[in-house]
């Protein structure tokens, strides 16, 4: 059965580039170019593989990002997604995870998905709360920490990573699933994919397009407030152990001390 798969794609400041906090709002400075969060490349790949198995299936990307940013979306479109929905609006500045979930849920609803895929947690915010909030708002079942995902178009079969191994979980579609890194190996966008992505449709929506009230989102709607930011403790220099024949024992002793073994 042909499926409409939606992937949540977060566009984040390049983790390899120097980053800064806005001293006023104490939030991450997102004014530079944003790129596809590596964590989401797994969701995109998973979606492409599931859609690729069934003729007529399609992958739609949904993202919320400031400044009309599409760079990260273009990367995911180049991998093979068909279209994207971007929500970008000045009133979204200061959105916490719940407001973001409201916005994304409204955007996802428009795409009428059979399956929604997100990453377990983002690289920059990593609260790991957004996808389940989206599921709740959409009234859909959610399965988290998937290390493998399969579907026949009606049901979802997930191997859910646990500390001891994995659980086998089944649930009916539509549903929300979050995938871990390693669920599949993301492809590199090909040259043809990048060229094709330039002309793929990206629908840009505002908060009012989604029928949301600006007072529910952004600084106005945030229930989360950053009260203080402090410097992380500097890393201490570490200890150099010279091997005098007892190197192995000292390593074991150290590992025992930090309770790894």
């Amino acid at each position, binding site marked *: 059965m042909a499926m409409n798969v939606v992937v949540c794609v977060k566009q984040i400041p390049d983790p390899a580039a120097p980053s800064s906090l806005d001293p006023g709002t104490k939030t991450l400075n997102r004014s530079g170019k944003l790129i596809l969060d590596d964590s989401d490349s797994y969701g995109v790949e998973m979606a492409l593989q599931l859609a690729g198995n069934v003729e007529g299936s399609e992958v739609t990307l949904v993202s919320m990002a400031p400044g009309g940013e599409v760079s990260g979306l273009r990367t995911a479109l180049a991998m093979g997604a068909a279209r994207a929905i971007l929500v970008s609006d000045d009133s979204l500045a200061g959105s916490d995870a719940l407001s973001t979930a409201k916005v994304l849920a409204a955007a996802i609803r428009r795409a009428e998905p059979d399956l929604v895929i997100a990453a377990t947690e983002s690289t920059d915010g990593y609260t790991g709360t957004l996808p389940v909030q989206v599921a709740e708002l959409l009234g859909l079942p959610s399965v988290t920490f998937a290390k493998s995902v399969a579907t026949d178009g009606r049901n979802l079969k997930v191997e859910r990573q646990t500390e001891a191994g994995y659980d086998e979980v089944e649930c009916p579609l539509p549903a929300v699933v979050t995938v871990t890194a390693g669920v599949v190996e993301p492809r*590199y966008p*090909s*040259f043809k994919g*990048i*060229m094709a992505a330039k002309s793929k449709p990206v629908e840009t929506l505002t908060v009012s397009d989604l029928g949301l009230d600006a007072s529910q989102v952004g600084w106005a709607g945030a229930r989360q407030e950053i009260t203080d930011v402090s410097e992380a403790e500097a890393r201490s220099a570490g200890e150099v152990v010279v091997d005098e024949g007892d190197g192995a024992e000292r390593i074991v002793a150290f590992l025992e001390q930090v309770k790894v073994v």
Partner: protein
Amino acid sequence: MDLSLSEPELDLVAICRDFAQREIAVRAAAAWEEARCPTDLLRQMGELGLLGILVPEEWGGIGMSTVGFVAAMEEIGRADQSVAAAWQAHVTIGSLPLCLFGDDAQRERWLRPLAEGRALGAFGLTEPEAGSDARGIRTTAKRRDGGWLINGRKAFISNAGTDMSFGVTLLARVDPLEEEEPRFASFVVEKDTPGFTMGPKLRGIGWRGLDTRELYFDDVWVPHDHLVGDPGMGLSQFLRTLEVGRISIAALSLSLTQAVLDLAIDYARQRVQFGKPISKFQAVQFKLADIATELEAARWLTYRAAYLRDAGRPFRKEAAMAKLKASRVATWAASEAVQIHGGVGYMLETPVARFYCDSKVLEIGEGTNEIQHLVIARTLGC
């Protein structure tokens, strides 16, 4: 003069940089030890579109400009010269004869798989007794039973013996050996054709991952539709492909020079002797400044030759000059970069030593530098 790259060219460079750094560079040391053609990487490059870089989209390629190819090579070659060497041999001499001179049926049958990255292309010109003197080849093709019977031997043929190889396009004489004005033609010989065998992979000083072998043809019969292009025009066809091959070797040389320059700068800033980083010694600084300057000179000769080809203008002289200059700069720069590294630069554990080993062949392949001199001198009226 605007020498900036176009948007598609920049996109291609970004793909190549990302792939080269994330997939190729990390494998370079192990690949050297294995001394085996890393066809898994080449297949991945095929999926990105890189194996059909100079082939029009119509035949499964991406129809990139020559300038874009040079820029892409700068990224791939910086990560590993063996992969880059195999790639460029496939892209130029391995694919272009079919692309430029094949008919549509041949392009569909052999070029498309090459361009789409499903197979690796090879070209066989050199023979044990004929290298620089291409007209001296002794491999013959005689009309027989509606096809051609091929006999002879090819030396130093790259990309024909891997698990991804489709066979070889080779050059043979179509007239008897004793003929004064011999005519030459190109033929496709697919692997597993009866009578087509090959020797073991040869072990070079560098380019350890490149699969280069001797090929043997004993009464190899191919149907007439395996003849590529005009019978009798084979040699000039091949010499035309070699002109692009020279730009390609020049680009490979640029990538090597950039790589050793980067390594030497890094090392010179770290290595402390007599109480300061050796980059503070003028003798070392001048070496680095010289390499950087010569690299820029070679770079613009190479991009200009590529630009002329893209503009549909003659580029034989410029390609020969680019190859001559860039390969000289590369071998010299690699030697200087090893010098800057001192003893550690001599050890194959370091990348700079591997690049040093890889550099020499740049002065030999696709026409030795003496032959480049001859080509250039001829255009000067000598």
